[in-house]
């Protein structure tokens, strides 16, 4: 087993990384050019606009800390059981969580920088939106693929099979959500001309379908399936005390996956425009982020309890 001091140092370093990201993000809010249209809309001075943006960023930053804490604790546990049969699966799960956790600050910081540039040079605005949308898509997609592989390995190792009716229900829900998503996105596109970029995504319809809609649907399918497979694994794992701890970890992970999907759903159905808008989208996004933060904390509690079993 890894010495506790070494894993504690690793966790400390992770939290230091998160602090650097938080300071960088707040710094960028106060340094980058502001959006004059929004300032005029809310009748704010430049400083007031920056303070309002920073205040809105605080709950988001709190969620980053929860996310980094969660993945650090999961990594501690996976390192503690590295040489066991289930070690590699938890290690893979931990890597997936690292991608999910890092997707939060990276998306926010990239968005902040690109929108800042877009505020200074209006011609860059469409590029800023396009790049931000792809960053928000790609990092969680990688996370879901890794978590999905870990979930499949766990289920395969335990020789468990999926409950067909529940799997079908999950797929029906996914199809319903996917169809609704397509309907909502297509409303924003000019479907009379597939090459037109006169939409909120600044992409032609065909490119939206190929490089945004299909990858999103694929990511959500993999994410939902992984969440379901991990639930099946945890419910069927033997050991009363072990299962209780594992359930915390799995409940947290499922909350994180579902909130990540919800966040992508909201951000792609109601596209980003690079402006600070105090509307229902912002409230919904903050609520989903809080759920994600609670999920990461629950995951951390579960991982700590599992690690304690390996220590006493």
């Amino acid at each position, binding site marked *: 087993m890894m010495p506790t001091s070494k894993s504690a140092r690793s966790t400390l370093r992770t939290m230091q990384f998160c602090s650097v990201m938080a300071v960088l993000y707040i710094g960028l809010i106060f340094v980058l050019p502001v959006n004059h249209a929004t300032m005029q809309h809310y009748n704010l001075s430049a400083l007031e606009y920056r303070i309002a943006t920073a205040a809105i960023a605080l709950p988001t930053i709190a969620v980053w800390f929860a996310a980094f804490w969660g993945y650090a604790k999961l990594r501690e546990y996976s390192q503690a059981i590295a040489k*066991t049969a289930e070690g590699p699966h938890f290690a893979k799960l931990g890597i997936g969580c690292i991608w999910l956790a890092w997707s939060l600050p990276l998306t926010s910081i990239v968005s902040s920088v690109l929108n800042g540039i877009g505020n200074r040079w209006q011609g860059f605005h469409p590029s800023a939106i396009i790049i931000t949308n792809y960053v928000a898509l790609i990092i969680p997609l990688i996370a879901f693929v890794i978590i999905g592989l870990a979930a499949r390995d766990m289920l395969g190792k335990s020789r468990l099979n999926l409950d067909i009716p529940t799997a079908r229900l999950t797929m029906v829900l996914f199809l319903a959500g996917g169809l609704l998503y397509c309907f909502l996105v297509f409303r924003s596109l000019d479907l009379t001309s597939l090459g037109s970029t006169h939409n909120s995504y600044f992409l032609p319809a065909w490119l939206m379908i190929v490089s945004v809609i299909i990858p999103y649907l694929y990511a959500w399918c993999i994410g939902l399936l992984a969440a379901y497979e991990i639930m099946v694994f945890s419910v069927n794992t033997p050991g009363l005390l072990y299962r209780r701890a594992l359930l915390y970890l799995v409940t947290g992970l499922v909350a994180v996956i579902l909130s990540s999907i919800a966040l992508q759903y909201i951000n792609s159905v109601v596209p980003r425009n690079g402006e600070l808008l105090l509307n229902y989208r912002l409230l919904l996004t903050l609520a989903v982020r809080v759920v994600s933060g609670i999920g990461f904390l629950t995951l951390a509690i579960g991982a700590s309890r599992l690690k304690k079993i390996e220590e006493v």
Partner: protein
Amino acid sequence: MSSRAAHASVYDQVVLITHSYLGPAANRFIARQVTNHLHKAPGDLSPADLLNLTDWIRVAVSLLTEDSNIVEEYIAELQKLALSYEKRKR
């Protein structure tokens, strides 16, 4: 106790009981208790060590859960195993 369990080593039987509580971590948990507290290799665990081991397990499991019912149920199963060896000895 099944005939298969009756022929298993003391260590295997303790792990078998523990598996119901600690699942995949059972083997590692018992190996640690034997090595750290009884200062023996897990394979050298003898029936004479069972009561001493049970005391250490009670302490360790109490650190994992506040549910005293589970702890007592687990310990009772281990004590039953120790008692079965005592009877065989007589």
